[in-house]
């Protein structure tokens, strides 16, 4: 007879996951039962994610780490913070999808079910110290994302993007799982704390470390593993690109922070050197290649690589301010990037063709609200006050200064200056005289307009009054 090491009280630790799992089940049943009423699925999704979001907000305090399931999973403030980011992103993505899927004639209700599964996996990823759970969550997340990328079956680029993503992702997963196996061989444990006890001098430890880092850096699209990003963002349905550019990165960043701070703390100097190079290359690559882009979604893809680079600066500062800066940056990034993608979707034609920047010409006069919104999001992505993008960058760079990474900060500021060129050229295009080649019907969706409004509100409010989320982030990184 086996002894069951789990208790009923363990379920208190995974309430956010359970809420979304219940949501997934309901979506699954409703999708199977109803033939054509797919809009109800989006309403149910929003309600479910809202419940999970509220749970995370209400239970944010006190600052303790509550373990369950023999320590495999826990709930703490950092996990709750990322849960908020992820569920908020999911709400906005569902709102963006609601009318978009109708227009593009995507009738499969699985879209929402798979999105719920990906949210569960991100919640798990943000609340574990166990590499087995990490691997399962990363796999669930990756598979969900491959499928969501390929949802545009009518458009040639979408299945192609899904295929590319799958091949790259399979490689990254293989590295991750071999890394985990090597850690287990070396230290006899898959827990971060167990790995930390092992002797970090061994060759195997270093190999395992590199392999796990490949898996994580692939998820955040850092320099040598970034090349999938623009193609996939271009090919995927726009709400999926938006979702993918924020939520999985948030989960991967908290994982990266925890992994570096706990499991491999004994080689801090070495991983800081490694991340220094990665961060610099990521920033420079994202920003310089973005200069050449003609397509708005590709531009946002390269911009998201660059932003991952800025966040890596915060990670490698390796102090409270840096880690909190990363969390805050992710929080602000939700509003700014989802907003930018929402405007991009609003201005796109059926089939998502022709998202080129040239097509934005003159829309600032034709659609004043959309023009102002886009200009505003571009300013925030550049990092110009009074936007949340500026505050986030300020925290990240001041954390790096605290850690004496002066050169890194200088390079980061240079990068912001480079990025200003292409972000502002979008703004210039919007307010250029003259019309786009063809005037066409834009996507008329109420929920999409709400997303843009929420994006503007978040970008502005947290740009002027950052203290509430920032204090939460500072408290959250106290215990990792």
């Amino acid at each position, binding site marked *: *007879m086996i002894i069951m090491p789990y208790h009923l009280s363990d379920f208190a630790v995974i309430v956010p996951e359970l809420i979304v799992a219940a949501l997934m089940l309901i979506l699954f049943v409703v999708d*199977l039962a109803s033939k054509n009423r797919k809009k109800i699925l989006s309403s149910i999704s929003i309600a479910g994610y809202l419940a999970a979001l509220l749970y995370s907000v209400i239970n944010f305090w006190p600052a303790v780490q509550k373990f369950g399931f023999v320590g495999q999973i826990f709930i703490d403030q950092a996990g709750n913070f990322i849960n908020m980011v992820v569920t908020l992103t999911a709400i906005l993505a569902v709102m963006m999808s609601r009318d978009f899927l109708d227009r593009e004639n995507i009738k499969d209700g699985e879209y929402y079910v798979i999105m719920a599964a990906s949210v569960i996996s991100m919640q798990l990823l943000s609340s574990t110290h166990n590499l087995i759970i990490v691997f399962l969550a990363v796999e669930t997340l990756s598979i969900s994302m491959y499928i969501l990328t390929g949802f545009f079956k009518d458009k040639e680029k979408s299945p192609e993007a899904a295929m590319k993503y799958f091949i790259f992702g399979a490689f990254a997963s293989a590295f991750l799982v071999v890394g985990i196996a090597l850690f287990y061989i070396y230290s006899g444990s898959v827990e971060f704390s167990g790995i930390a006890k092992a002797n970090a001098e061994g060759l195997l430890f270093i190999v395992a470390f590199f392999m796990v880092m490949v898996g994580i850096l692939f998820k955040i699209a850092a320099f040598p593993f970034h090349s999938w990003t623009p193609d996939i963002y271009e090919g995927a349905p726009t709400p999926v690109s938006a979702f993918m550019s924020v939520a999985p990165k948030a989960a991967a960043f908290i994982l990266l922070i925890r992994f570096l701070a706990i499991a491999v703390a004994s080689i801090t100097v070495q991983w800081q050197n490694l991340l220094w190079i990665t961060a610099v290359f990521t920033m420079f690559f994202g920003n310089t290649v973005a200069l050449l882009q003609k397509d708005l979604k590709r531009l946002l893809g390269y911009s998201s690589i660059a932003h991952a680079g800025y966040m890596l600066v915060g990670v490698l500062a390796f102090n409270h301010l840096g880690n909190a800066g990363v969390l805050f940056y992710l929080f602000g990034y939700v509003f700014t990037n989802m907003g930018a993608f929402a405007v991009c979707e609003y201005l796109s034609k059926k089939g998502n063709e022709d998202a080129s920047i040239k097509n934005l010409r003159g829309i600032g006069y034709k659609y004043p609200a959309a023009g102002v919104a886009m200009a505003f999001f571009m300013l925030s992505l550049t990092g110009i006050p009074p936007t949340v993008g500026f505050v986030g960058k300020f925290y990240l760079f001041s954390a790096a200064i605290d850690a004496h990474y002066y050169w890194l900060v200088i390079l980061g500021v240079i990068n912001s200056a480079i990025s200003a060129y292409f972000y502002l050229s979008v703004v210039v295009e919007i307010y250029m005289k003259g019309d786009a080649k063809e005037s066409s019907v834009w996507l008329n969706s109420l929920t999409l307009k709400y997303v843009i409004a929420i994006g503007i509100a978040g970008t502005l409010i947290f740009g002027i009054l950052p203290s509430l989320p920032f204090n939460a982030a500072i408290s959250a990184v106290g215990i990792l």
Partner: protein
Amino acid sequence: MSGYGEVMVAFILFSVIFAGMVIMSRMLAPKNPYKEKLDLYECGSPILQGGYKMDIKYYLLAIMFTLFDIEILFVVPWSVYARGLGIIGFIEVSVFIILLFAGYIYAYVKGALKWQ
């Protein structure tokens, strides 16, 4: 460990029989090789140029078979020690199977198993 001796004997027997069948047919069968024989599915129809159109459903079935095969693999450790794992183990494996049975129902309702 000796419990697997029979498995091994069976395994070797199968291998020998299988290899014997292949070698015998090689030696006894008349040989008349030409290139078209290597093509797949040539039921009297003229050989198509530029490739065949095979239904993606075959592959879908293969993927579903793989997934349910992996499910079987996870049930095996339970089945070899079912008595020892007791009622708790039974409930646990039931949850797992029910979750995947939902997947089966899904595939059925969506018509993925139907061959139009």
